[in-house]
C-alpha cells in the first residue's frame, strides 16, 4: 500500500475514524492490527519476521532488566543483538557475502590456478522484507538502552509490538526511540483539531515534495544512470545535482507523510531532516540528514568504538568514524557501491576532524559570508559526488561516471557560445543539460527546486504552518488550494514509483 495511493488514504481515514471512536484502552489494539494489516498488504507471509523480532526483543528486554548479574544481562543482550543482526544478515546480506566470497575464489581460480570459475551455490532467491533494517535497529536500540539502564523494559507485549510496528514509520522510519514513543502509547489521545490539521498539512507538503519534485527529477536522473555510456560531462553533473535533490525530496517527503500520518492519530515521531543543504561541513550535514539513523549510529556504533579505542587519542575518533560510516554505507544496501559511499563519507569526516585547526585559521581570514557560502557549496558538491556511487546501478557504472565527469565540458561551452540566433532559439545545443527532456520541463524543474529552497528558508525562521494559521482565511485557503492544484497539475502520478528508502 503506497503512501501516495487512494487505498492508503482510505486506510488512514478508516484508522482515524475508528481510533477516535474507541476508548483509550483499546486504541493500541487498533493500531497494532492496522499496522499488521498494512505490512501484510506487501508480502503477507513476511509478517512473522517483525512479530518474531518483536517477541524476542520484548523477552530480551525483560530478562536484561531482571538479570541479577551484569554478565547475564550482557549475555542476553549479545544473544538479542545476534538474533537481530542475524535476521538482517540472512535476508539482506547473505547473497552479497557469498557472492563476494565466490568472486574472490573465482579470481584466484582463474588467475592463479588457471581453473574454471565456479557459480555461487548459495544464492537465496527471496525478497528482502520491507522495513527490516528499521525494525531491527529499533529493537537493537531498545535492548541496548535497557542494558545501559536508560530505559525501563516494557511489560506490555502488545504495546511493545505497537511501538515496533506502528504503520506510519514501519517501512522507512524514522527509527523511533522507545523512550520517545512508548510513553505516548500510555497517554490519552483525544481528538485535537490543531494536531490533526497540522498532520494533514504535513502530508500534503510531503506529497508535494515526492510527487511534484522527486518523481519529476527522477525522470531526468534515470535516463543518465540507466545508460551512462550515452552521456558525459555536463549531463553527469546535472544528473548528480538533480539526484541529490531527488533523494532529499523523496525521503523527506516520505518522512513528512509518516510524521503527518502519526500526527493525525495524535502521535509525534522524531524529526529526520533539519535543512541539510545549509550545512557548512559534512559533520554538520550528518547532524541534519536522516537524523534518526545518524543519531542511532552515533549512539550505538560511534560512541562505543571511540570509548573502546580511546587510548589511540585522535586516531580513535578517525577509526570510529570510518567504522561507523562503513557500516552505515552497508546498511543502505548489500553492494560494494554503498560501501564506497559510506567510506567516502567516513574519509571526508576524518579529514574534517584532522584539519579542524588549519581550517579554522583559514576561515578566520575569510569574510563571514564567503566562508559560510563556501562551506555550504563544498558540502553540497561533496555529498552530490558521493551520491553517484549511491545511485549508479553498479560500481563499474559509478566509476564510468566519475571518470567522465568533466569530459566534453569545454566542447559543450564552445557550442553554446557559438550558438546562432536570439535567446530561445536553437535550444538543441542545451540537450546535454536538459537530459533528453524539453527545455520548458527543465526550467519548471529548476524553478521547483528554487521554490523548495525558498520555502525552507522561510521555514527556518519559524514553522510555516503557524505563520500560515495567523493569516486571514482567504490567504490560508488560497495557499491550501494552490498547493493541491499544483500537486494535481505538476504531479507524476505513477504508482510504480516507490520511495527510494523502501529498498533499505
Amino acid at each position, binding site marked *: 500500500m503506497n503512501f501516495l495511493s487512494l487505498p492508503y488514504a482510505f486506510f488512514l481515514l478508516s484508522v482515524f475514524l475508528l481510533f*477516535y471512536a474507541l476508548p483509550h484502552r483499546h486504541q493500541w489494539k487498533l493500531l497494532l492490527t492496522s499496522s499488521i494489516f498494512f505490512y501484510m498488504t506487501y508480502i503477507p507471509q513476511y509478517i512473522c519476521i517483525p512479530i518474531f523480532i518483536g517477541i524476542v526483543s520484548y523477552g530480551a528486554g525483560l530478562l536484561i532488566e531482571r538479570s541479577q548479574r551484569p554478565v547475564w544481562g550482557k549475555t542476553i543482550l549479545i544473544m538479542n543483538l545476534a538474533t537481530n543482526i542475524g535476521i538482517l544478515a540472512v535476508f539482506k546480506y547473505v547473497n552479497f557475502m557469498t557472492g563476494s566470497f565466490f568472486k574472490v575464489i573465482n579470481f584466484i581460480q582463474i588467475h592463479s590456478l588457471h581453473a574454471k570459475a565456479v557459480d555461487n551455490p548459495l544464492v537465496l532467491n527471496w525478497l528482502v522484507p520491507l522495513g527490516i533494517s528499521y525494525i531491527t535497529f529499533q529493537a537493537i536500540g531498545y535492548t541496548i538502552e535497557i542494558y545501559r539502564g536508560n530505559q525501563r523494559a516494557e511489560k506490555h507485549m502488545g504495546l511493545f509490538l505497537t511501538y515496533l510496528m506502528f504503520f506510519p514509520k514501519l517501512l522507512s522510519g524514522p527509527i523511533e526511540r522507545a523512550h520517545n514513543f512508548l510513553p505516548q502509547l500510555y497517554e490519552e489521545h483525544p*481528538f485535537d*483539531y490543531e494536531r*490533526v*490539521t497540522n498532520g494533514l498539512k504535513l502530508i500534503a507538503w510531503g506529497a508535494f515534495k515526492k510527487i511534484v519534485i522527486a518523481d519529476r527529477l527522477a525522470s531526468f536522473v534515470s535516463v543518465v544512470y540507466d545508460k551512462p555510456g550515452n552521456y558525459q560531462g555536463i549531463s553527469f553533473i546535472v544528473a548528480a545535482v538533480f539526484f541529490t535533490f531527488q533523494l532529499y525530496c523523496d525521503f523527506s517527503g516520505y518522512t513528512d507523510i509518516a510524521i503527518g500520518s502519526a500526527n493525525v492519530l495524535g502521535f509525534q515521531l522524531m524529526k529526520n531532516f533539519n535543512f541539510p543543504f545549509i550545512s557548512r561541513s559534512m559533520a554538520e550535514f550528518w547532524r541534519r540528514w536522516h537524523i534518526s539513523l545518524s543519531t542511532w549510529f552515533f549512539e550505538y556504533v560511534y560512541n562505543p568504538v571511540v570509548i573502546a579505542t580511546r587510548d589511540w587519542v585522535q586516531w580513535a575518533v578517525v577509526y570510529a568514524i570510518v567504522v561507523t560510516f562503513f557500516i552505515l554505507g552497508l546498511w543502505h544496501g548489500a553492494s560494494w557501491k554503498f560501501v564506497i559511499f559510506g567510506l567516502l563519507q567516513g574519509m571526508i569526516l576524518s579529514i574534517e576532524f584532522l584539519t579542524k585547526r588549519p581550517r579554522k585559521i583559514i576561515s578566520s581570514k575569510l569574510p563571514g559570508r564567503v566562508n559560510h557560502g563556501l562551506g555550504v557549496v563544498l558540502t553540497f558538491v561533496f555529498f552530490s559526488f558521493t551520491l553517484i556511487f549511491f545511485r549508479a546501478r553498479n560500481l563499474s557504472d559509478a566509476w564510468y561516471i566519475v571518470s567522465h565527469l568533466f569530459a566534453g565540458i569545454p566542447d559543450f561551452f564552445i557550442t553554446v557560445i557559438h550558438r546562432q540566433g536570439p535567446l*530561445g*532559439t536553437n*535550444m*538543441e545545443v542545451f*540537450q546535454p543539460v536538459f537530459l*533528453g527532456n*524539453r*527545455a*520548458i*520541463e527543465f*526550467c*519548471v524543474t529548476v524553478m521547483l527546486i528554487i521554490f523548495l529552497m525558498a520555502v525552507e528558508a522561510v521555514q527556518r525562521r519559524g514553522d510555516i504552518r503557524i505563520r500560515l494559521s495567523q493569516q486571514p482565511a482567504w490567504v490560508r*485557503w488560497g495557499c*491550501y*488550494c494552490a498547493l*493541491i*492544484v499544483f500537486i*494535481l*497539475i*505538476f*504531479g507524476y*502520478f505513477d504508482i510504480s514509483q516507490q520511495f527510494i528508502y523502501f529498498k533499505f
Partner: protein
Amino acid sequence: MIMTKLFLKIGLLVFLVATIWLLLFLFFPKPAPAQDSVYEAAILDKHRLLKTSSPPRLIFIGGSGLAFGLDSPLIEKEMGVRVVNMGLHGGFGLRYVLSEVRPFIGKGDVVIVITDYEQFFGSTFDGGAELAVIAMRFPECRQYITSWKQYVTIIKNSPYAIRASLYNFLSHQLFSTSFAYCRFAFNANGDSLGHLNKEPPGGAAFNPLMINGHFNPEAVAALNDLAGYVHKRGARIFLIYTALEEKTYRADEKEINLLARIFKKELKVPILGGPSEDIFTEDYFYDLPSHLNARGREIRTQRVITRLKSVL
C-alpha cells in the same frame, strides 16, 4: 462536533479545488483555435476538410501512424478521387475517431480504417491524455465524445491537459521551437510532412507496443457499427493493417495474430491484406515503430494503392 467541523472544511476544500480545476480546464488562456499551432490543433483543419469536400472521397481513419505514413496526393492521382487523411493521434481513442467522421460520410465515400493495434486492447479504445487535450482546447471536438468512459478518461487525464496547455503557453513565451509535431506541418489532404527527410531530435525509440490489458470487444463492435452506418449511407468501408517496425512486430506478434483471428471471425469490415505484409526494418521509420519516414511512406502508399485498386 470538532470532527464534523474538520470534515466540513475538507469538503469545502475539495469543492474549491474542483471548482478551480473546472475553471482551469475550461478557461485556461490559450490561442484562438485558428491560431493554435499545437500538433493536436490539426484536428480542426481535418474537420474543415471533411466539411468542405464532397463525396465521393477516400476517407482514411486512424492515428499518428496514418498521419505520418500516407502520401495522399499520390493516392489522389492514382485513384482519381479526393483523399482526406483523418489520422492524427492514437491517444484520441478509436471510439472518438470513428465518431468524428460519422456525420460527414456521404454516398460514394470509401472509408479506410488503418488504426493502431493498441486500440483493441485495454481501455485505449476510449482514448488517453490526448483526448483530454482536445476536449480542453477545442470546444468543437466535445460534440464527438459519446461515452461516459471517455469522460472518465478526460477527468483522469485533465492534469496532463492543463499542464500541456501551461507548458505550451510558457514555451511560446520563452522558447521558439521547431518540431515535426506541429499543426502547420500538414498538407491540404491531412498528411504530416514535418518529419520527412529529418532525424528525430530526441532519437528514435522502437519499443514494443503499449498493449495494456486484454482484448476489448467494444472496439470491434464499434467498427461493425460504423460499417452498418456506412452501408446505410451508400458508402463502403475497408480495414488495412498498420505498418510496423520489424522488431516491434516480432515482440507483439502473439497479440497481433490474436487480433487478426478475432477480426476474421467477428469483424464485418472487409480487410485488405494481412498484418505481416507491411513490416519494415527501422531504417524506414522516423521516431516510433509506426511512424514511417519518407522512404517507408512511399513504399507503404504504393502498397495501399495496389490494395485499393483491387477492390475499387
